[in-house]
């Protein structure tokens, strides 16, 4: 495998690299970097280090990822529906997933919570949960697919996001709807407008016909069955209609931004 590593980091003296790495990194990170070659993750951990070859590989990979965003936007068919399933197909128990334990999930008091609306919309009023519950809701049983590869079928009920965007007079020619969440460290994620207007994209208030439990994003999650799971933000506290790409929690760490399924 030694030969292989050399091939993957052309021009970099492995011994020198290891010597440099030992100086600046704890043991685990060092292992990561060496095995990762020109990985973005390793680079994130190595910020400030002068590793020229990894840097250029990183730039190239980022460029290709942007190209892949464009390819996916081109492939995206606004009329193609995610497959739906019978209730019997629902995965039980539906997995909790996050970058923290379920015990650290946000605890939100529905009475105090408000959805802030910002950006390119006519009506910037904040919405209470009771007000949102008055809007017409629809149910979908669809497959949630995680960027890690696993998938689970769940039942989500809520208001189609496109109906809400129409209601608040959003400029649907804008590029993105950007969501901010109550997760610790401040989760956020941009959703391209065409996906936001997809008929199955939903402001979700119920899971399996029950009020959305804390584990799945109480009081509101955005369910986007045409996107990978991390583009389905939970514990949403605000949405902003914008033409600016404001980045996202995982997107900024190197996950492909479009991440459509």
């Amino acid at each position: 495998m030694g030969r292989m590593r050399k091939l993957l980091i052309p021009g970099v003296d492995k011994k020198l690299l290891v010597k440099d790495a030992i100086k600046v990194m704890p043991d685990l990170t060092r292992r990561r970097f060496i095995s990762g070659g020109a990985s973005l993750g390793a680079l994130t951990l190595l910020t400030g280090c002068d590793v020229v070859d990894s840097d250029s590989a990183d730039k190239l990979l980022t460029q290709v990822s942007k190209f892949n965003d464009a390819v996916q936007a081109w492939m995206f068919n606004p009329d193609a529906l995610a497959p739906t399933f019978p209730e019997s197909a629902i995965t039980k128990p539906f997995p909790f997933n996050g970058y923290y334990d379920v015990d650290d999930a946000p605890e939100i008091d529905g009475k105090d919570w408000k959805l802030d609306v910002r950006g390119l919309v006519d009506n910037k009023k904040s919405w209470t949960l009771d007000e949102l519950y008055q809007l017409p809701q629809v149910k979908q049983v669809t497959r949630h697919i995680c960027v890690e590869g696993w998938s689970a079928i769940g039942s989500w009920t809520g208001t189609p996001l496109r109906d809400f965007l129409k209601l608040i007079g959003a400029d649907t020619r804008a590029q993105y709807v950007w969501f901010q969440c109550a997760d610790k460290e401040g989760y956020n994620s941009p959703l391209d407008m065409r996906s936001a207007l997809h008929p199955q994209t939903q402001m979700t208030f119920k899971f399996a016909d029950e009020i959305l439990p804390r584990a799945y994003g109480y009081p509101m999650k955005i369910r986007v069955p045409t996107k990978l799971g991390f583009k389905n933000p939970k514990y949403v506290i605000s949405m902003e209609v914008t033409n600016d790409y404001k980045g996202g929690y995982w997107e900024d760490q190197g996950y492909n931004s479009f991440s459509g399924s």
Partner: protein
Amino acid sequence: MSSLAAADSPTTVEPAKVIQPAWVRIMHWINALAMILMIMSGWQIYNASPLFDFRFSRDITLGGWLAGALLWHFAAMWLLMINGLAYLITGLATGRFRKKLLPISPGGVISDVNAALNFKLAHDDLSKYNYVQKLLYAGIIVVRVVIVLSGLSIWKPVQLHWLVMLFGDYDNARYVHFFCMAAIVAFLVIHVALAILVPRSLRAMIIGR
């Protein structure tokens, strides 16, 4: 007159027969690079949510973590797909597949396997594949097509839902993708071992003769 002279001393006048044309060699090595990148980054992606009770050692994976591995995987996929498509089209259009890989008869495969096990399988003419080679090379092309189709299914299960149906469902497509990888790695082990045993074949894949 000149043709007679040439016939008299073919080794000096006529260059050695080209076994692997340039397009085969170029596409072979691009494919080799793309495959290695895809397999190593794929192992890192697998580790994020293993299908079986094991993970691949970090020492043999690419990308460092899931996001890095995905970047590599979805970059190298273009190399693999475009090169693979060009190879298929050229192989079919030039008749190389038909000439080199067909026909494959079960009897021929069995007798060649027996010959190989008794160390009696000859490699006098590298331009002609024996039945075992024909079967493996044709088979790996099929696997190569299936791994791309299952990969596309996992990547775009909604937009390419019709493709997912081919494999049953999303989860099945993941298993198919994994087993195709396993088949390619097994092929790679045999392929590299035999190339080392018959170095002339490796030379032919580099300089053509």
